[in-house]
């Protein structure tokens, strides 16, 4: 983490993301921001609010509802020498751009042997918990982590959201940032029937003003413990903390933050210490990112394991509307898994 020390300010995740854009645009004239409703209106989640007014329509503008065209144009801008920061309105809408992302952005450096590069950032709100149904709730991280040439990040709090976005904008390669939309306005532990919490009382809601970055590829241990290692990211970081309290087990909770590249060292060190591992994500189970984590832990920590590695994930169904909380891997399901893994002999 590199940091120019400054005052901190309470920010929710939206304000932190907006601030990151502002800092990057102020520092570098080549940073341009665009997406559907991202210009005048400032985005449906308001993450780019005020940027057009401050920097003009050439640096922050609206785009047609055409995701492939948006990313394709961004790739061309990056080839020219700009640093495009693209907002795709919902991660569910990103698939029309999958060809441009997976076979163009991710491959341009390699196929041109370094003559051309593609330093673009694509931000998109991910995950559920907002009654968004199957087209506003999905977690498509695994379709990007399977693509070499990309970097894939998922912050779980305002501090990381700002620091990772600035780091991504400065990165020389294409970066996808999945922003858990349920966390925009406050940490969410998965208790949908309890009062909303804001970021103001949370340590990571205290965000430095000005420039700092969070290093891409570094996980963060949010709770140290000895009984079991919990690997999670995004929404699930908060769910896992609640589940740890419910289960009353001494879990070590690791917020991966960066899925590609992955902080294998942090994972390996922790699992070798605890001998047990629970992997939690909101995305569907089969071929999800958890499968890769499970394989890596097995390859590297097999002789240290004292119990089978366990996954807690969304079910293999489309994201339902009425049954949202049955789908969502909440603290009760995670707590049960923690107990089971810790008690396994």
């Amino acid at each position, binding site marked *: 983490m590199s940091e120019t020390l400054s005052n901190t300010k309470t920010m929710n995740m939206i304000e932190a993301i907006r601030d990151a854009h502002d800092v990057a645009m102020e520092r570098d004239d080549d940073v*341009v921001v665009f997406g559907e409703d991202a210009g005048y209106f400032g985005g449906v989640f308001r993450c780019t609010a005020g940027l057009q007014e401050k920097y003009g329509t*050439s*640096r922050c503008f609206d785009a*047609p509802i*055409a995701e*492939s*065209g948006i990313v*394709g*144009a*961004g*790739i*061309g*801008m990056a*080839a*020219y*020498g*700009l640093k*495009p920061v693209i907002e795709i309105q919902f991660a569910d809408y990103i698939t*029309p751009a999958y*060809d*441009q992302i997976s*076979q*163009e952005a991710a491959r*341009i*450096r*390699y*196929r*041109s*042997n*370094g*003559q*051309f*590069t593609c330093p673009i950032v694509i931000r998109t709100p991910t995950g559920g918990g907002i009654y968004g149904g199957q087209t506003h709730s999905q977690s498509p991280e695994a379709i990007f982590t399977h693509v*070499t*040439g990309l*970097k894939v990040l998922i912050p779980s709090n305002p501090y990381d959201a700002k620091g990772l976005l600035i780091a991504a904008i400065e990165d*020389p*390669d294409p970066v996808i940032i999945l922003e858990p939309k349920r966390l925009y306005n406050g940490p969410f532990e998965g208790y949908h029937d309890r009062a909303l919490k804001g970021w103001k009382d949370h340590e990571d809601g205290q965000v430095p003003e000005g420039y700092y970055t969070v290093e891409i*590829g570094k996980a963060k241990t949010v709770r140290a413990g000895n009984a079991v290692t919990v690997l999670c990211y995004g929404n699930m970081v908060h769910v896992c903390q609640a589940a740890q309290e419910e289960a009353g087990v001494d879990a070590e909770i690791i917020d991966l933050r960066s899925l590609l*590249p*992955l902080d*294998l060292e942090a994972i390996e060190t922790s699992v070798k210490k605890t001998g047990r591992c629970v992997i939690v994500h909101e995305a569907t189970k089969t071929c999800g990112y958890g499968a890769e984590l499970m394989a890596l832990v097995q390859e590297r920590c097999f002789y240290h394991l004292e119990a089978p590695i366990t996954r807690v994930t969304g079910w293999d169904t489309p994201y339902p509307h009425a049954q949202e909380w049955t789908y969502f891997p909440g603290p009760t399901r995670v707590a049960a898994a923690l107990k089971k893994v810790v008690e396994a002999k």
Partner: protein
Amino acid sequence: MDGFARTDTVTDQRDQGRGFRVPKPPARPGETPDFSGINLGEPGKLPLLDAEAPVEAFEPFHHDLLRVLDMDGKAHGDWAGLVTDDDKKTALKAMIRTRAFDARMMRAQRQGKTSFYMQCLGEEAIAVGATLATRDGDMQFPTYRQQGILFAKGVDPEVMMNQIYSNRKDPLQGKQLPVLYSFKEYGFFTISGNLGTQWPQAVGWAMASAIKNDDKIAVAYIGDGATAEGDWHQGNLFASVYRAPVLLCVVNNQWAISTTAAFAGADKNTFAARMASYGLPALRVDGNDLLAVLAACRLSAQRARAGLGAVGIEFLTYRRGAHSTSDDPTKYRAKEEVEGWPLGDPIDRLKQHMIVTGLMTADEIDTLEKDAETEMREAENRAEENGLVHAGQGAEPAAMFEGVYAEMPGRLREQMKEAGF
């Protein structure tokens, strides 16, 4: 309309669906070629436009055909004034060298020196003509049939052959297929194998130029078949919405492997008219007429540099050869079509023009052709000395792990070690 499709008459009982139609080419092997559905216009008929003319002034060019040269080599009309004698000489040389290079590489493929090659036989005027309308600093986003750009820009053919042979001196170190070149210093964007993706990228590059208040332009190319991709439509829309300084060149060579342009809707409306439907000024141009190609691109480039945005250009041409060395067109089209194409061959037509106007003699042209042949033979000898991938003389194996990212991540370092490097 560009009616390069058979009239809808059902002759086979099995094809009697309720109005269901699958387009058919006018002629299959053994049948007589028929180009009568294509509007061929006439040389010199369409008036010269002002580069800053309003978009409505382009309307006559959507369905008619901009032509300068007639079939006897004579130039007609004011568009001819946009092309100088020096341009013609430069273009002829580049077109002849392109063809000589292709011939050499087709032979090399048959000799087993490379697994794969794609020629641009009959389409040389388009890439060469468009390139003469560009300046250093502009960026072209080609498909695999615009190698003419590289000959117009002066790339050393040996370097291209090194890539075709994926040898030790391959500039891309074996990472990309033969013919999918990348030459940034010559304003030539890395070619993708996925069709159509370059179209919105070229538009984005041009948007960046406009954002930076630069006068550089982009040139995008796409084949008739790939216009069916969503990227073509989105790119056209973005070019129009953001007024991007880009020349949007549809190379309509009638065939996408074995299907005709009718599968991209060409018999319903011209590509020029369809680009115009996005609000773009658009021209339909004889792609086998170097003078018409260069004149159209020069005017369009001038317009784009002046801040008036994109121009869509449909080049009417014919794919004389197979799609690639892996294709055999005798299986699906009448071979007489090649010689029957009503707009002839671009090199033959430019040669004739040079001779009838006295710009060059037949002997001088003959020398040009012989020199090109010698140049390509010698380049090939040098490239072969650098090795052939199929003879086990390819690029360094370890190079495959490099350049996935700016900095090699831990997982790749590990895998590289596992692979034995």
